[in-house]
């Protein structure tokens, strides 16, 4: 018995030590990237300092985060700001990064940008302690703070257009040199983690499909994570193998798996956030269109506001189709194969949405 107790104690010790090593690794990594990121602009005195905290799914997703980084780079080039970035490894690290940036004196950050729904609570907590620090939360909203401005999107509107296109493909079929769909009347949706933002994608997309033709079968599944391409692939594989003509994703890095499945099935897929036929160019042969969500312009605009002294900490902006924040862009390689009738339908639907003629649900009804 005493032997066993001892073993357990050593086990706990080892786990503790291991965790410390792991933590040290994280800190080392992020500090490293801070240094390289901020060194660019430190030379110019009085430059605006911006910190950004990426979501866990992070850079390299060939979509969301990479697009946000582009906005940051644009701001560096055009506005001469310097910037630091935090790349957390898990949801529990968000608050640490915000705290660290908010309490930093050298440099003193003029703005901290948080991204996604997962950072609502961390920013809510930290922003209460640093009343002088300005935040912008993009893609979600923190209520009742005058030092946190919010920028969100109307993903359901943009996704409705993706739904319109998908419905056309599912009824008319689709032919290009690389992919073909026979018009089985089945469409699919791959979600990352289930949250209100991703559900807006799904709800809008589903409405777009159903408003066109109620008989189309709608399949949807969530991988539970934004960084699980293997899961995304098996979800999409199952959809394609059960007749899906086209699948759309709102799953960040998980969605890359959907493209892989599309390539193997030889069917079209719809990308998200950026024109993925360019950003995920390995898969441009299956990407019929992408529903863009201009993270880059959201990041750039909020930084521009700070630089120009127009920052308003209580503002709550929602960007939509009318602002050009969402757009359905056809793929570079196979987008031209989309039928004229589908393209026309997308164009007219877009105008109808902007004119407020179509009401689109923001939540998925179970």
């Amino acid at each position, binding site marked *: 018995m005493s032997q066993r107790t001892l073993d357990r104690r050593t086990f706990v010790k080892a786990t503790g030590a291991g*965790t410390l090593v792991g933590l040290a690794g994280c800190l080392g990594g992020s500090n490293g990237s801070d240094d390289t990121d901020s060194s660019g602009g430190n030379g110019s005195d009085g430059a605006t300092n911006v910190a950004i905290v990426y979501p866990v799914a992070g850079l390299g*997703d060939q979509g969301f985060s990479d697009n946000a980084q582009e906005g940051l780079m644009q701001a560096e080039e055009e506005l001469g700001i310097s910037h630091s970035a935090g790349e957390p490894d898990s949801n529990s690290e968000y608050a640490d990064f915000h705290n660290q940036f908010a309490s930093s004196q050298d440099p003193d950050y003029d703005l901290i940008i948080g991204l996604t729904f997962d950072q609502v609570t961390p920013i809510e907590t930290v922003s209460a302690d640093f009343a002088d620090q300005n935040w912008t939360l993009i893609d979600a909203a923190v209520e009742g703070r005058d030092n946190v401005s919010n920028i969100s999107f109307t993903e359901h509107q943009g996704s409705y257009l993706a739904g319109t296109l998908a419905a056309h493909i599912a009824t008319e079929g689709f032919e290009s040199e690389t992919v073909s769909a026979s018009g089985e009347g089945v469409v699919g949706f791959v979600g990352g983690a289930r949250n209100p933002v991703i559900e807006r994608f799904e709800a809008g997309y589903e409405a777009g499909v159903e408003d066109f033709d109620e008989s189309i079968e709608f399949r949807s599944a969530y991988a539970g994570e934004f960084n699980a391409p293997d*899961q995304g692939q*098996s979800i999409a594989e199952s959809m394609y193998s059960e007749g899906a003509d086209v699948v759309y994703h709102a799953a960040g890095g998980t969605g*890359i798996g959907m493209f892989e499945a599309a390539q193997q099935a030889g069917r079209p897929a719809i990308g998200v956030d950026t024109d993925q036929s360019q950003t995920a160019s390995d898969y441009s042969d299956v990407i019929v269109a992408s529903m863009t969500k201009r993270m880059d312009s959201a990041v750039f605009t909020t930084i521009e506001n700070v630089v120009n002294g127009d920052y308003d900490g209580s503002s709550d902006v929602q960007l939509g189709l009318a602002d050009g924040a969402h757009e359905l862009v056809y793929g570079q390689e196979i987008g031209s194969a989309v039928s004229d009738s589908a393209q026309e339908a997308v164009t007219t639907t877009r105008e109808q949405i902007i004119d407020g003629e179509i009401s689109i649900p923001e939540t998925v009804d179970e």
Partner: protein
Amino acid sequence: MIEDMNLTRIENTTLTRRRIGLLALAIVAVVALLVSPYRDGITSIVNVGFFNTALVLSVPITLAGIGGLYSEKSGVINIGIEGFLIAGAFTSVLVTGATAGSLGADNAVWLGLLAAVVVGSVGALVFGVVCIRYKADQVIAGLAVWFIFLGLAPFLSRVYWGNINSPTVATFNQVAIPILSDIPWIGRLLFTNYPTTYIMLIVVPVAWYVLKHTSFGMWVRASGEHPESLDTAGINVNRVRYVSIMISGALSGIGGAALTLSTVGQFIGQGQTIVGGDGFIGIVAYLMGNYNPLGTFAAALLFAGLDALQLRLQQIGLDIAPELFGAVPYVAVIIVLVLFGYTRIPANAGENYESGDD
């Protein structure tokens, strides 16, 4: 003696009763699903595609599990296989990405797989030296292996690609085996698949045969059960253990490469990396399979099947939290270990062996 026998008999009756109970529960659950309104949906999602997904998802679990099984059978508990999976996943993407330009995608993926095997074996050798030569506690050293690769792989990917996630590299294509792939159902399932899946399908029976029917297999078992007798027979116990540990590293390397090169060709460094606990499920699989490679494969297939099922149940509107399915392997192993207790850990697993010779 008679008392002993009675005790065994009583134990056996209880065990049998518990097994029957579990079987009955499983039958009730299946019947309940089949009479539920979801019946049509469920029968429609359990098709070739479902079994194919389960088979592909089971590859890293099975390979890591069989590797861990060899190591533990030889007397060295290797809970670091999760770490070796990470090493394999990372290395395969790194090498494939770096060589695709000069060698062409088709050769680069094989080189990536080979590199994953080499890194897995060498890493396992180092782990073996730490455990055998320097007599480190195997569980602690195994944990260290996991933590080291959990930190090192994302760190190196940040250094090499400037990002915690790698870009996508070339991947294996599914290969249809001529003639055999034309068999209905089986052909699609077993003979139109990734090279790594074929490797697993070969490794499983070979590992079973080697362990049960060859002298090397006997040495491995003896080394974990009764090293003294092996030593007496003139076989170097520690050499057998080194080889077994390296087998576990090599198989985990293939498993890790299967996770990246047979999917999208990307290494994900966030959180628990792209491996996300497959190594631990592998350990669970060989425990449930009672150190039998065939049983390990069956258990891995079961866990992978549940995962594949979860992704499909959502599509027919039966939305069960994925986290709940994720917990199934761990709950299952506790039930198996506690209620059935047929899993027998090798007598000398975790014990260092010192030959009286030197």
